[in-house]
C-alpha cells in the first residue's frame, strides 16, 4: 500500500472562491491547523499536487511486441515522492516505475474519453516533425529522446495540476502501479466510448443551434492550429538557412590560416582571426539546439489546439443528440396525435397505406397507441438526459476552456519572452566573436 500523505487540496470553483475538498481516506491525516497550510505548495496558481513527479531518465529496451517481432523501444522512468516529505526537508528515495510512450498514449486516450469537457494536455510528438534538415528525424536520436522525456514530464505535471484531471484514479495508478495499471484502464470500459468518440469526431452532422461561444472557440482552435503549424514550418526553414550562413563562415577560418602562411606582418592577425571564424561557425549548433525548446513549446500548443477542438466537437455532438432526441420526441407525439384524432397532418407511409387499404382494426390501433406512449415516455427521458448532458458539458467545458485560455496566454507569452532572450544571447555571441576578429584584424 502506497503511503502518501495527502494534504488538503484547494480547488478553484467557478466563482473564484476557494473551497476545500475532503481528503482521501487512506492517509495519515495531519491536523488541519496552520502548519498544514505550510505544506501546500503554491505553484503560482492555487492548484496543488500531492506528489512531486518527474520523468527522470530514458532507457532503451528490447523485447517482443504484440506480433512477436523483436523491437527496440524507449522506456521512461517516472519518479514520485510525497510532497509533504519534500516540504519537510526529508529526502526519501522516490518511488519509481518505467513506462513507455504507448502507455502514456493509453493514459491520455482514457482521459480524453472520460473527460470530454476538458482540454486534455497533449503528449509530445510521437515522431520528429518540423525538422530542419540538419536535425535528426530519428526517434532513437538521443537529443530527440531527451526532448521527449521533458515533454512527457511536462504532460504529467500539467495533468497532475489540473483541477479535475488530477483527481483521477487511473492517473494515480499510472504513477504508482507499474503492473496491473493496464488492466485497471481497460476495466473502466473506456475503449468502447473511445471508438464511438472517434466516429463522432470524424462524422459530419448538421447542428441547428450550436452554442455560439463554442463555435467561436472551435473556429479559434482551427486558427491556432493553422498558425502554430505555419510558424513551426517557417521556423524550421529559417533555422536551416541560418545554419548555412554560419557554417560558410568556417571557410574563412581555413583560408585565413592558409593565407597567413605566406604573410609576414599580417600572419598572426590573420591566423587568430581565422580561429574566431571557426568559433563563429561552430556556435550555431548550440544556438539552434536551444531553439528546439521554443519549437517544443509551440508544438505543445499546436497539439493543444486539437484537444480544444475536440471539446467543441463534443459540444456539437451533445447538441446534435439533443436535437435529434427532441426531434424524435416531437415526431412521435405527432404520430400519437394523428392516431388519436385520426387526422393526418403529416405524410406517413402508414397514413398512405391506411388510405389505400383501409384503416386498421381498433385493437391494433390501441396496441400501437400504447407502444407510442411507451416510446414517448422513453423519448422524454432521453430528451431530459440529453438536455442535462448537454448542459453539463457546456458548463464544465466552458470553465475549462477559460482556464485553458488563461494558461495559453501566459505560457505563450513566456515562450515569446524566452525566444527573445535566446535571440539576444545569439546577438551577444555574434558581437563577441566579430569584435574579437576585429581585434585580430587591427593587429595585422
Amino acid at each position, binding site marked *: 500500500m502506497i503511503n502518501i500523505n495527502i494534504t488538503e487540496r484547494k480547488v478553484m470553483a467557478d466563482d473564484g472562491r476557494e473551497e476545500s475538498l475532503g481528503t482521501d481516506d487512506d492517509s495519515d491525516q495531519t491536523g488541519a491547523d496552520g502548519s498544514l497550510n505550510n505544506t501546500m505548495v503554491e505553484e503560482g496558481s492555487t492548484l496543488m499536487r500531492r506528489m512531486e513527479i518527474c520523468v527522470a531518465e530514458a532507457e532503451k529496451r528490447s523485447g517482443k511486441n504484440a506480433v512477436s517481432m523483436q523491437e527496440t523501444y524507449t522506456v521512461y522512468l517516472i519518479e514520485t515522492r510525497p510532497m509533504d516529505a519534500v516540504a519537510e526537508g526529508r529526502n526519501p528515495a522516490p518511488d519509481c516505475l518505467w513506462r513507455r510512450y504507448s502507455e502514456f498514449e493509453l493514459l491520455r486516450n482514457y482521459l480524453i474519453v472520460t473527460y470530454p469537457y476538458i482540454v486534455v494536455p497533449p503528449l509530445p510528438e510521437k515522431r520528429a516533425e518540423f525538422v530542419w534538415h540538419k536535425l535528426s528525424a530519428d526517434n532513437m536520436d538521443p537529443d530527440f529522446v531527451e526532448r521527449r522525456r521533458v515533454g512527457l514530464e511536462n504532460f504529467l505535471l500539467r495533468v497532475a495540476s489540473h483541477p479535475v484531471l488530477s483527481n483521477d484514479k487511473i492517473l494515480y495508478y499510472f504513477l504508482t502501479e507499474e503492473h496491473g495499471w493496464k488492466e485497471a484502464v481497460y476495466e473502466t470500459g473506456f475503449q468502447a466510448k473511445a471508438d464511438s468518440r472517434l466516429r463522432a469526431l470524424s462524422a459530419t452532422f448538421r447542428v441547428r443551434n450550436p452554442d455560439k461561444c463554442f463555435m467561436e472557440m472551435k473556429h479559434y482552435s482551427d486558427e491556432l492550429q493553422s498558425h502554430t503549424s505555419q510558424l513551426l514550418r517557417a521556423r524550421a526553414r529559417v533555422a536551416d538557412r541560418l545554419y548555412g550562413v554560419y557554417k560558410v563562415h568556417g571557410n574563412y577560418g581555413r*583560408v585565413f590560416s592558409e593565407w597567413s602562411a605566406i604573410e609576414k606582418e599580417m600572419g598572426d592577425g590573420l591566423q587568430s582571426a581565422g580561429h574566431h571564424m571557426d568559433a563563429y561557425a561552430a556556435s550555431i549548433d548550440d544556438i539552434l539546439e536551444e531553439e528546439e525548446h521554443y519549437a517544443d513549446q509551440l508544438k505543445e500548443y499546436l497539439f493543444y489546439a486539437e484537444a480544444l477542438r475536440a471539446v467543441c466537437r463534443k459540444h456539437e455532438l451533445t447538441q446534435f443528440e439533443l436535437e435529434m432526441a427532441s426531434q424524435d420526441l416531437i415526431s412521435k407525439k405527432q404520430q400519437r396525435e394523428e392516431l388519436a384524432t385520426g387526422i393526418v397532418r403529416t405524410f406517413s407511409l402508414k397514413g398512405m397505406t391506411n388510405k389505400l387499404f383501409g384503416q386498421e382494426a381498433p385493437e391494433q390501433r390501441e396496441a400501437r397507441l400504447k407502444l407510442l406512449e411507451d416510446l414517448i415516455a422513453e423519448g422524454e427521458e432521453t430528451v431530459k438526459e440529453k438536455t442535462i448532458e448537454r448542459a453539463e458539458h457546456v458548463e464544465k467545458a466552458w470553465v475549462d476552456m477559460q482556464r485553458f485560455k488563461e494558461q495559453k496566454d501566459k505560457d505563450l507569452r513566456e515562450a515569446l519572452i524566452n525566444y527573445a532572450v535566446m535571440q539576444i544571447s545569439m546577438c551577444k555571441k555574434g558581437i563577441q566573436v566579430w569584435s574579437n576578429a576585429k581585434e585580430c584584424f587591427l593587429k595585422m
Partner: protein
Amino acid sequence: MSISAPKGLASSGQKPITEILHPLSAAEEPLSPGPDVTVSGGRDKEVGLTNGTPVETPSPASASVLFNRLHLDDDLDPDTRDPYADTETHDLFVTVDDPKKHVSTMETYITYRVSTKTSRIEFDLPEYSVRRRYQDFDWLRTKLEDSQPTHLIPPLPEKFVMKGVVDRFSEEFVETRMKALDKFLKRVADHPVLSFNPHLNAFLSAKDLNKRQGLALLTKVGESVKSVAGGYKLRVRPPEFCALGEYLDTFNQKLGTIDRIAQRILKEQSEYLTELREYGTVYASWAGSEEELQRPLEGVAGCVTTCCGALEDMSENMSQDFLPVLREYILYIESMKNVLRKRDQSQAEYEGRLEAAVLRKQEDRTPIPAEVEKCQDKMECFNADLKADWERWQSNKRQDFKQLLTGMADKNVTYYEKCQAAWESLITVLQDKQTEDKTSETN
C-alpha cells in the same frame, strides 16, 4: 657621375634628383620644395631624367645610387608607415565624384567629376575640376603603362560588363565603379613617380582630353613590338623575384577563395532573409486571431522585420564595398605579374646581349657595345623600381586589407547590435505587461 645627394629615385619626375626624397622615407624635409629652392652643386645634366619618356634614357645606375635606394628601404619601420596618412609628402589631392549621365544620339554614358588640388609647380593652377568618363581613365592607364613599364600601375575596375546582366546605369553599379576609379586615381597620385607623369597632368587639367585614339593604338602596337623584339629566354630569375612570383600566385589563389566565400555568404544570407521575412509575416497573421497575445506577437513580428532590415543593410554593404575591393586586388596582382614578366624580359634581353657581345669580343676583340650597358641599366632600373614598388604595394596591401576586414567585422557587429536592441526593447514591453498582469492578479 657622382651624385652628391644620394637620396631619390633615378627615374623620378621633372624634379632634380637631389630634391626628391625617397617616397618611403620618413619625410623630414618637404617633398616638393617651392620654386625658390636652389639646386645643390654637383648635379649634372644626366640627372635630368624626365618622366614619361621611354626607358631608353639611361638612369645613373651606379652602385651607390642603387645601394642607397635599397638601404633606405631597410630603414623603414613598417608600423609607422601609412602612405595615406603621411600628409607631409602629399601635395596632390584628387577626388572622383558626382556621376552624371550623358545622353547623345550616338551613345549614353556616365561622366565623373575629377577634382584636383595641388601645390605642385608642374600644374599651372592650384585647383582643377574636369569631367571624365571611363574611356578617359582607360586611356590614362594605358599611357602610364606604356611610359612607365618598370612601374606597377594600379588597376581599373572591369571595363566590360555584360549588357543584359548588369545595368550599367544603376546607382549601385555607378557608385561601385566610381569608388574604384577614385581609388585608382588616388593611388596614381600618391605614387612618387607616376604622379609626375605628364599624361596624368593632362588627364587632371585639360579641358578636353584629346585622346587621339589612333595614337593610343599605335603605342599599343609599339609596345608589343618592343616586347617581342627581345625574344630572349630568361635563365635564372633572382631568388627575391622568384619569391615575389610565388607569393603573388598563392595570394591570388587565396583572394579568389575569399571572393568565392564572400559571394557564397551573400547568397546564403539572401536566402535566409527570404525565409526570415516569411517568418515575420506568420507572427503578424497569428496576432490577428489573438487577443491577449496580439501585442506580443506583433512585437515579435516587428523585431523580425527590424532584423531583416539590418541584414539587408549589411549584405548591401558587403556587396558594394567588400567584393569590389577584393576583385580590384586580384586585378592588381595581374598587373604586378605583368610587370614581373617585363622585368624578366629585360633581364633576359640583357643577359642575351651580354653573352653575344662577350662571345664576339672573344672572337674578334669587338668591344662590348654601349647597347649592352643600356640594357644593363634598364634591367637594374627595373629591378630597383620593382622592389620599391613592391614594398609600397605590400604596405598598401596591408593597410587596405586591414581596413577591408575590420570593415567587415564592424558591419557584422553593427548588424548584431541592431538586432539585439530590437529584441531587448521587445522584452521590456512584454515583461512590463507581465508585471502589470501579476499585480492585477494579486489585487
